[in-house]
């Protein structure tokens, strides 16, 4: 039996990788993908907890379903924004989009 800690540490590693990507990628879609990674890492921990902790009674899995729902909504709106960016700026690199900066 794999101990609960291995799942949680795997979740932590995935979350860290995703966060690094979200902070550093220049491609807007790359940032979106990194955020999806972070969602997955969180979900992994939820599911692991709901499997191992006696009093949880599948709450973790239900929460993971809600996270997936929100992730789907986020992806749809996010990609629509990326398409809008591309139409207006002809680039999808977020650091070249600096109209509101000075």
């Amino acid at each position, binding site marked *: *039996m*794999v101990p*609960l*800690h*291995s*799942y*949680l*540490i*795997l979740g*932590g*590693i*995935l979350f*860290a*990788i*995703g*966060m*690094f*990507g979200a*902070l*550093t*990628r*220049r*491609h807007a*879609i*790359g940032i979106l*993908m*990194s955020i999806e*990674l972070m969602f*997955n890492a969180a*979900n*992994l921990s939820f*599911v*692991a907890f709901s*499997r*191992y*902790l*006696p*009093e*949880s009674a*599948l709450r973790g*899995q*239900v929460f993971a*379903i*809600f996270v*997936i*729902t929100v*992730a*789907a*909504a986020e*992806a*749809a*709106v996010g*990609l*629509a*924004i*990326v*398409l809008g960016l*591309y*139409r207006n700026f002809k680039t*999808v690199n977020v650091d070249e989009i600096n109209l509101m900066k000075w």
Partner: protein
Amino acid sequence: MTASEISFFILAVLSVAAALVVVFGKNIVHAALALVLTFCSVAGIYVLLDAEFLAAVQILLYVGGITILILFAIMLTSRISGGGVRILNEQVGVSLVVVGGLLLLIVSVLWNASFAGSAPPPVQTTPYIGRLLITTYLLPFEVASILLLAALIGALILARKEKE
């Protein structure tokens, strides 16, 4: 080593390696395909955790829905030849420090934590999750449906061409 330990090890290595490609991949399409691999290995880990319904939902929504949308958007926005450009911005150093600190924090907390023993899983998770969703979690369920509707309309309005 039991079969579940070997499977966990393989899936964990796969998911982390694919996640690294997602973040550091030069080619954005390769990154998106690596994301598919990460999602699939996480779904495999869900199966190890007796959450087969969630594993199926994960593949259905993440792989069949979100990644396809992402690939679609990539093909619409980038010229197919996209090599040689910088893929990371100038915040790499700061981000490394922040992320390294976070990872250290998570691991050190987990190292010292101990959780109460393990529970036997319910035999059939799917009907149980369904019942939970329409009894205990009815309100979040309805809120989620409103959120999806709002996202649907929002995405439509954002992606539509504005009238000149």
